């Protein structure tokens, strides 16, 4: 009898295991289809958003939409580092949790190539608005309208998958009371040398050089300025080139003119240096100007900072784009209302309220609105950077691994662990290996 029960237990164990393996291995191939016909108003819409000041504007306008439509908006916040993982796991599991997602534009290639987002032009006949910078549409179009296209995606019909909600672009901040406007990177270095005073202390520049993406992003304006690129049109990695090495030498000079320890500086540390009056020039983003330099609670330099598009290298000025988009997952059951919210939130009228509440807007007319420019002195520089126009980050789901590898070597160069030549050689090898693994080379 006892033997019987032991066997029984063994069978139970086996069955449980088999059942569990079955659950894990089950295929999830059928995508959710979009329903058409009369659309009932949902009780609520759920938005996955980023926690922090990037969400300030959208959170400020939500009550107005709720009052207008009677639809409750659940704005679920995740820290930047976990939002991407959360969206990916939700989409992979085909969950209907989110009606709208707030996504960093570098995440879109992953979402778009996986077929996770609703094409706004196809489903809702969305028409482009001339008051919205064309680059904002380019960044949310798949396959991308310019640059290399990832293997297997070349023949897909081109559609628009998101609308910018937060117009985020790199620009330049300098202490207008101390230095003249730098037109070129040479001017930046000359300015930095002129004002540097270790006794105050005042540093001529503050480089964001923390490992990974921070270093990678910060280096783009210089790299492109000298004609360097991450890859050519066939995805061959091109970081070990004379152009990139030349730009890295300039970067190294900027690192030396920066406060000690910048190898561990992310955006907040670099902006804090500017706001506390210890740095004279930085590459910056709108949120840093809003939260640090122009925030009287933390800044000692309110009214002293001037903003412009990034300085020019031999090949020109290259601000980079890092927009936050609103997109509608194909799994959402309330797509029509999600689209209604999206178009409402990005309309000119609402964008002004959004900006006044401290959000970073996205419309040309809002950035150049004289009333707003008075309150937010960096808005015209943001518009100026958008007119350059800014560069859209490489359209590949492999961007994050690649920029992490690249950024680690950029960081190692500033930390003195690798020379420029060693760093670019290793990065070239590792990035190529990564793309080979991902099937980019036949």
């Amino acid at each position, binding site marked *: *009898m*006892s033997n*019987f*029960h*032991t066997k*029984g*237990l063994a069978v*139970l*164990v086996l069955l*449980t*295991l088999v059942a*569990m*393996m079955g659950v*894990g*291995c089950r295929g999830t191939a059928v995508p959710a289809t979009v329903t058409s016909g009369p659309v009932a108003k949902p009780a609520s819409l759920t938005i996955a958003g980023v926690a922090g000041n990037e969400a300030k504007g959208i959170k400020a306008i939500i009550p107005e939409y709720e009052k207008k439509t009677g639809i409750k908006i659940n704005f679920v916040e995740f820290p930047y580092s976990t939002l991407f*993982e959360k969206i*990916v796991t939700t989409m992979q599991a085909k969950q209907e949790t989110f009606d709208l997602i707030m996504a960093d534009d570098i995440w879109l290639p*992953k979402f778009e190539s996986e077929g996770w987002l609703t094409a706004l032009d196809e489903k809702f006949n969305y028409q482009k608005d001339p008051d919205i910078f064309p680059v904002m549409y380019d960044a949310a179009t798949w396959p991308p309208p310019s640059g290399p296209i990832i293997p297997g995606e070349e023949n897909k019909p081109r559609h628009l998958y998101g609308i910018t909600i937060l117009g985020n672009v790199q620009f330049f901040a300098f202490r207008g009371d101390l230095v003249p406007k730098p037109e070129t990177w040479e001017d930046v270095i000359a300015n930095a040398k002129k004002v540097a005073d270790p006794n105050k202390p005042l540093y001529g520049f503050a480089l964001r050089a*923390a*490992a*990974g993406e921070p270093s990678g992003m910060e280096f783009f304006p210089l790299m492109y300025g000298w004609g360097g690129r991450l890859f050519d049109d066939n995805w061959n990695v091109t970081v070990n080139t004379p152009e990139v090495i030349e730009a890295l030498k300039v970067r190294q000079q900027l690192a030396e003119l920066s*406060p*000690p*320890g*910048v*190898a*561990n500086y992310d955006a907040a540390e670099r902006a804090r240096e500017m706001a506390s009056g*210890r740095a004279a020039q930085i590459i910056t983003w709108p949120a840093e100007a809003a939260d640090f330099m122009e925030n009287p609670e933390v800044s000692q330099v309110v009214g002293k900072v001037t903003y412009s598009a990034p300085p020019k290298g031999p090949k020109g000025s290259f601000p980079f784009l890092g927009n936050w988009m609103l997109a509608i997952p194909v799994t959402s059951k309330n797509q029509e209302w999600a689209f209604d919210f999206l178009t409402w939130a990005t309309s000119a009228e609402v964008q002004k309220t959004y900006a006044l509440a401290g959000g970073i807007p996205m419309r040309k007319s809002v950035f150049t609105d004289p009333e707003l420019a008075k309150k937010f002195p960096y808005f015209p520089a943001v518009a100026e950077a958008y007119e350059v126009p800014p560069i859209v980050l490489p359209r590949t*789901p*492999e961007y*994050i*691994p690649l920029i*992490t*590898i690249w950024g*680690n*070597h950029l*960081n*190692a160069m*500033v*930390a*003195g*662990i*690798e020379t420029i030549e060693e760093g670019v050689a*290793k990065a070239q*090898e*590792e990035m190529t*290996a*990564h793309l080979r*693994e*991902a*099937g980019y080379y036949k």
Partner: protein
Amino acid sequence: MYVRRRGDSLLRVVLLAPPLLFLLSMVVYPLLFGIRMSLTDYKTGQWNNFHNFVRATQDSLFSDAVKAIAIYVTVVIVIEFLLGLVLALVIYHNIKSGWLKALFYFLFLIPLVTPPVAAGVLFRLMYTPSYGIINYLLQMTGLIQKEILWLSQPAPAMFAVISVDVWQWTPFVFFVLFAGLQAVPKDTLEAAAVDGASGFQRFRLIELPYLRPLMLLVLILRLADTFQVFDHVMVLTQGGPGTVTQFLSVYIYKVGFKFLNLNYAAAASIMVIAVVILIFMALNRLLRIAEGGEANEA
């Protein structure tokens, strides 16, 4: 005499089932699932001839991570173990006052109950150049002239992440060994002292045999824990500068959740599990041999 009855075996099944199901669902199933993932391609999900494992052997970032964790585990375990042991012995033998002992318990408990992320934030502030207290104190006392860039230079960054672990987990070693010392019969120690045994002899011949099983336990627990180090490293350095503090767990996390190659991350994790199991077996064997030698001497 105990008589077996029919209901016994049924009862056994009923009692065993919940923990067994828990183990199966929380340990065995994820492990099997991980092994299955490690053997397939991250894009196609097809069997790929151990490609993920082969790749790990050729991946310089993986070998950097292995080197980094080897340094970290070795230094951390040695410091925590010796420091914890010395503290336990010193406090056990020298502090007689009850309230003073209680004060020590309390102070040692603080790091243990601090969440690692909070510890990371705390130390990040302390190590920051320009306003961190560590540089300030070192400069004030004249020990350094120029600021040390704790988190952005290779050796200081490694030191910084190690220091957080040592601060947080030495008290654990202390508590376990201190508890072990309570079990040593006082009269044996006193008799040895009367016979003229030195302090070190008393420790080696009387206290050590009592502590040995606990030492093994502490080593195994700390080893398992330090291999997984993650939280405070992400807060302090995120693996930088370069890849100096990019430990295996940090690298595997990046591969899995940033690079979205969960299959390669699974293969790397399986390799880590294999190595850790081997280390445990070796450790266990070493301590058994040591124990056997001691028994023979006796």
